[in-house]
């Protein structure tokens, strides 16, 4: 086990000099505690993930979806993890590491509020001061999570700059870290940032695929034909993929947020999507070389997705590398398809998925439809025939639960006239 700062050409440590010693200290701690289990770190981490977090999470056969798509669909139920998303795997790992490193304080950015909530929970659990940076737009669209963080006694610091989403929150958390680097650990929320973050966060999240690989062999008697996960920064994605990367027969699909289409509004430096793997270009952001949504000058574009947790202009360097290597297939689905998938799982399986996870679920529908239609759906690139390659045995990572998204979903389903949604009347006058 070792720590390598790069994934092919991607990754690296592009941070201000003031942070470099912290990054080096963290690399050292990562190698000792996480890779070498010094002082029993990994044992304690695993124990707390089980007792506090509720691991293992089930791998559930989705009966209705399996019938609908005429293949075996299994759901990895990260929505059942404490806090309601896979985010706790990482947050608990990093907060525990901060304690092992003797830090007094942690900071974190959050987009959907899930990483912030998970970090606030872990910080309360392990008794360490916690401040969360969150963009103003995200604060407004993820209110319940803001309240949850505060109930856990974390300070939530609104970030007013730019579009007020995840990108700006990361900028601001990096600034805090650079100011308080000596006693503070930055609990980054996805497989992004400078080395060792992408590798370390992936290791913490890999428990997902470690379990899923065991579970599918037990339940289906073999490895899956494909694994499907949504990709924002990509932590649930690599968490769900990692242990399958060496299983070459298992196809890995990273489903990005297609937003309202894979175009770019050059006038306003705005991408109406968040599909950095599908539509991004190599560049350097937030400490790493990776695929980015940027204009030809290198200015970072504002991304957009109905799902706050996917609304990010970058992506983890390891995923960028695996995509270039043709090991991971990047695909994307739009806002409407994600909303439909949200309602579909809620009605057919009795599980309310996070809007992020709804993207992964929406891809199933696209794949099935394109088999039926002979087309690959409107959001796909021409010539994309991956859709019918999901195969007969599919694992989908349900990265989180959708309770946090109810207000957004009700509003957006109405505004967009989403067929699958209950009529708005039942939410307004209907009672």
């Amino acid at each position: 086990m070792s720590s390598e700062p790069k994934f092919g050409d991607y990754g690296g440590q592009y941070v201000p000099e003031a942070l470099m010693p912290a990054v080096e200290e963290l690399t050292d701690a990562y190698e000792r505690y996480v890779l070498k289990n010094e002082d029993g770190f990994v044992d304690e981490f695993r124990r707390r993930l089980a007792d506090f977090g509720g691991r293992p999470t089930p791998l559930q056969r989705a009966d209705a979806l399996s019938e609908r798509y005429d293949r075996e669909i299994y759901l990895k139920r990260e929505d059942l993890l404490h806090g309601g998303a896979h985010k706790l795997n990482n947050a608990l790992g990093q907060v525990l590491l901060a304690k092992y490193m003797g830090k007094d304080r942690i900071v974190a950015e959050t987009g959907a509020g899930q990483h912030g909530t998970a970090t606030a929970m872990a910080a309360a659990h392990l008794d360490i001061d916690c401040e969360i940076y969150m963009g103003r737009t995200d604060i407004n669209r993820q209110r319940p999570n803001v309240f949850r963080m505060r109930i856990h006694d974390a300070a939530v610091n609104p970030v007013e700059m730019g579009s007020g989403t995840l990108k700006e929150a990361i900028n601001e958390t990096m600034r805090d870290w650079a100011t308080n680097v000596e006693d503070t650990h930055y609990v980054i929320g996805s497989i992004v940032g400078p080395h060792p973050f992408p590798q370390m966060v992936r290791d913490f999240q890999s428990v997902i695929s470690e379990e899923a690989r065991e579970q599918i062999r037990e339940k289906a008697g073999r490895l899956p034909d494909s694994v499907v996960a949504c990709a924002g920064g990509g932590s649930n994605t690599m968490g769900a993929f990692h242990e399958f990367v060496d299983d070459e027969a298992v196809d890995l699909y990273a489903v990005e947020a297609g937003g309202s289409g894979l175009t770019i509004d050059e006038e306003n430096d705005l991408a109406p999507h968040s599909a950095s793997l599908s539509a991004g270009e190599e560049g350097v952001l937030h400490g790493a070389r990776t695929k980015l949504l940027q204009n030809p000058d290198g200015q970072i574009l504002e991304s957009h997705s109905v799902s706050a947790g996917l609304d990010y202009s970058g992506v983890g360097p390891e995923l960028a590398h695996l995509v270039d290597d043709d090991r991971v297939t990047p695909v994307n689905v739009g806002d409407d398809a994600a909303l439909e998938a949200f309602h579909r799982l809620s009605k057919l399986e009795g599980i309310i998925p996070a809007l992020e996870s709804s993207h992964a679920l929406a891809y199933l529908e696209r794949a099935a439809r394109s088999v039926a239609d002979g087309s690959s759906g409107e959001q796909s690139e021409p010539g994309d025939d991956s859709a019918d390659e999901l195969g007969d045995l599919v694992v989908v990572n349900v990265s989180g639960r959708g309770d946090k998204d109810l207000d957004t979903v009700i509003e957006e389903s109405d505004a967009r006239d989403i067929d699958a949604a209950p009529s708005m009347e039942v939410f307004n006058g209907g009672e």
Partner: protein
Amino acid sequence: MASEIEAAFDDDPALISYVAAGDPDAESTKEYVRALVRGGADIVELGLPFSEPIAEGSTIQGAIRRALEAGMTPQTYLDLVADLDVDVPLVCMTYYNLIYQYGDDRGVEPFVAAAAEAGIAGLIVPDLPVDESDPLKEACDAHGLDLIFMVAPTTTDDRLDRMLARASGFVYVQGRLGTTGARSDVSDETHVSLDRLDAADLPKAVGFGISEREHAREIVAGGADGVIVGSAFVDIVASQENVADRLEAKARELKAGAVEGAEKVPEPERT
């Protein structure tokens, strides 16, 4: 042979002044740079605005946003620089991605070549740590630009050695942790950093938080060869009131402070 930038420290302690190019527009920036030079600036650091300025505090973030909204791009930046007829060295401060993306092919060479051509004398890239800097250093050497490194209070001796092995122009001493922005005092860390750099044979300039004549004097008295001032000038730009005159006056004040610091005989012992 000392570079143009290094030479700017020869006569007396240098004032290095920063403004964001294009805040609020390219024409004004030219006027402001001339005012700073009139006021005594020995080097002008001209920010090329990047959308994710993670090393900046809120003052300079605001300047960068205004500049971007007004349409500043790497190309219009270089045009602006080429147009500038001041006789102090110009340093470009920007983030790595803009340098990397410039030109038709990715890589740092095209930008460095174009910057040299436009009249830039050196580069400061706050998100490019020394260990990732070799390609850029090479391009700078090839085109006669200085690559200026920032030394933080947290920088280890080991890292300091690696930086000094590559640095030219001057050493940018980050006076405190955190981001750029005017503060009301001089941090103790400044003195510690200067002491550590005593042996370095490059000029040492201190930045982050300097806004008053008093600060400048104290820092130069503490052993610095120059002071770097940004937010204090950007505040004046942002005010939109009588900007050029006030920039000139502020530069004069800070330069005077720096000169006083050099004249002042340091006390033999601190109490």
